[in-house]
């Protein structure tokens, strides 16, 4: 798939991959051998009819292909961009055994974009109303999926979002160059056209509790509040000016559009020498954002080796192409600041890999006496995030685990409270968009059964 030149794109916020042309899409679709028992579908958490939509692409019926995907996946333009297809559908592809697997994700993205650009986004016929009221708390990938599924079953769905824009991590977390915000807005708009009511700037747990929602007449409630609490390393100097959580850094840039300051009011520190701590997709997003904000050097600092990096290979590749410098087997132990409280340097340790730990990955062990410092004027800590506590602390009887994630049945999303379901990062801890959508799909099925049998 054609992409923007790395040197050019490292300084702009436009999308990196340019997408297939219709000819490229058709050619790629013809590579699909239409397996009788398609393993790729088994790899998809929302069970998209992959051979079915690809056959339509091969015929040139792109709109039909988009409709086919949308019958099981409300967010194809998003999933085509941010799903880790290489470990889900594409890894199962028979063609991948001898050559490249069929580019399922790129085809999905192509048909969703084609449909949107053609202005032919079709609205399915409205189902008969069931008279049941459903509250969806959080409008990220899990919430969007639940809202889309439930409204199409005829329920009266209201989606509550704490921030001023819907989309959750899709708008505050994932940068414009990886997922243009206009696409998220279009997907949310589609749900509104289906009949979903959206209440932004509504923090459930504050303006209304779960119990308040039941009192207001909701029959079932889905909690998809995400992994919204940033983790820090709790090392000296971490509160110095210029040190951000990845959540803050990305929210400033993505949701608040700080990269367009002063046209937009929200500022962001534009460091010249920026260190990003972590090795996941969020760390890659933060590092590539720092580069686009004008850094001379962006250092990615990760305590294990390349093999253990949780980021998608494609993201690491993109980051390196754009000039991000990987500093592996390295961890910060202390930040040093000036008399005005600004970070000026960081002290690090080199690591080596020891025995495997609980995660099965080899544990990084500090090399004694390997301390060294280097100059930085901004740092982004991207080592993961925990559960946002606002709903849990105001919902009596809602069971949580030791990380304060909500305990929910894996197959149904059922929580310890009757009529309350949960899914996505708030249950699993920080994971992927598509896993949250898969959890939303299962919870929607169970919620439908629950409200209809009530």
């Amino acid at each position: 798939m054609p992409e923007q030149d790395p040197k050019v794109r490292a300084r702009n916020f436009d999308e990196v991959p340019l997408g297939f042309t219709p000819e490229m899409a058709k050619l790629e679709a013809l590579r699909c051998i239409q397996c009788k028992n398609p393993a790729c579908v088994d790899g998809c958490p929302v069970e998209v009819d992959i051979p079915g939509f690809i056959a339509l692409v091969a015929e040139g019926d792109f709109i039909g292909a988009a409709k086919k995907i949308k019958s099981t996946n409300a967010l194809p333009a998003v999933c085509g961009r941010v799903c880790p297809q290489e470990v889900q559908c594409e890894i199962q592809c028979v063609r991948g055994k001898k050559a490249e697997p069929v580019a399922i994700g790129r085809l999905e993205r192509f048909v969703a974009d084609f449909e949107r650009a053609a202005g032919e986004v079709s609205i399915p016929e409205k189902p008969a109303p069931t008279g049941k009221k459903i509250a969806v708390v959080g409008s990220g990938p899990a919430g969007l999926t639940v809202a889309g599924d439930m409204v199409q079953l005829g329920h009266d769905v209201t989606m509550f979002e704490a921030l001023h824009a819907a989309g959750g991590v899709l708008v505050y977390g994932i940068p414009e160059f990886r997922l243009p915000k206009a696409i998220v807005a279009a997907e949310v708009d589609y749900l509104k056209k289906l009949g979903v009511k959206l209440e932004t700037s509504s923090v459930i747990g504050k303006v209304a509790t779960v119990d308040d929602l039941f009192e207001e007449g909701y029959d079932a409630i889905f909690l998809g509040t995400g992994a919204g609490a940033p983790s820090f390393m709790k090392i000296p100097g971490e509160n110095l000016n210029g040190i951000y959580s990845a959540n803050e850094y990305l929210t400033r840039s993505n949701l608040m559009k700080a990269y367009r300051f002063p046209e937009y009011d929200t500022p962001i520190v534009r460091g010249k020498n920026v260190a990003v701590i972590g090795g996941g997709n969020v760390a890659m997003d933060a590092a590539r954002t720092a580069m686009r904000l004008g850094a001379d050097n962006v250092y990615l600092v990760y305590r294990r080796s390349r093999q253990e990096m949780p980021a998608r290979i494609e993201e690491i590749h993109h980051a390196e192409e754009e000039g991000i410098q990987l500093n592996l087997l390295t961890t910060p132990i202390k930040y040093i600041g000036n008399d005005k409280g600004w970070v000026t340097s960081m002290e690090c340790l080199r690591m080596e890999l020891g025995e495997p730990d609980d995660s099965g990955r080899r544990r990084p062990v500090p090399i004694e006496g390997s301390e060294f410092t280097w100059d930085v004027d901004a740092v982004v800590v991207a080592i993961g995030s925990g559960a946002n506590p606002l709903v849990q602390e105001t919902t009596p009887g809602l069971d949580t685990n030791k990380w304060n994630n909500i305990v929910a049945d894996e197959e149904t999303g059922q929580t310890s409270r009757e009529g309350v379901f949960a899914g996505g990062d708030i249950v699993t801890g920080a994971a992927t968009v598509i896993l949250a959508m898969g959890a939303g799909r299962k919870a929607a099925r169970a919620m439908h059964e629950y409200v209809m049998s009530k």
Partner: protein
Amino acid sequence: MAAKILEKEQLSENVFKLVLDAPRIAKKRKAGQFIVLRIHEEGERVPLTIADADAEKGTLTIIFQTVGKSTTHLSEMNAGDELLDLVGPLGQPTHIEKIGTIACIGGGVGVAPVYPITEAMKKAGNHIISIIGARDKSLIIMEDEMKAVSDEFIVATDDGSYGFHGFVSQALEEKYLLQGKKIDLVVAIGPVPMMRAVCDTTKKYNVPTVVSLNSIMVDATGMCGACRVSVGGKTKFVCVDGPEFDGHQVDFRELIDRQRIYLDEEKECMDHYCTCKQQGKGGL
């Protein structure tokens, strides 16, 4: 959700009061909580303490000082205008109980957030000593409101133009602590140097002191950590753990540094706003 401005009043040269139509928040809010507002699409998220609310009328009162672009823009809005977004109530409410004698201290625009706490503490049966202060007489706000919920009342001005000549911390010490009068709790809200001075004073006399911090925030729901502050050596988030903390444990030095992160950008943004206004691109 959008919110309409119902009333506007200028309380001093750069302090304004807005009454907003916000029934859901008005019904839920408790003393000590705050809201976040956004004026327009390009706007930042501005946290402001709730100064008052009327659950029956469904109104919310905010009082703010013009310090940068957003607050200047807000001060130029009028009754009938609409804020693009209003979210709240946020933060932990003040712990209200009958303790005994409570000194409620407000400095400058900090009188606004101290008022609902004073009112609630009075209602809970406490003996209230209010001390409000400002640089000079013209900057004193909410004098009548504070008097109405206080048993004892002192106004202090830095220049002596009205009431006690000196800082609120000095008034507290000279009029009460030095004289051995028993105070069970101090609640102090205002500029950071004022809160620090009050805490330095009350520490000497071992009087528990609660302060309400106004850190820089983005989402204000515990998601970003912009507002982190060291309290007793531990990092806390002002938006969800606060905004009130034990003043004797707060690292004020760090707080002051962190409040200055965007000084240059704030000036640039203000200049940009003024230029745009001159060019007739009002409402930017």
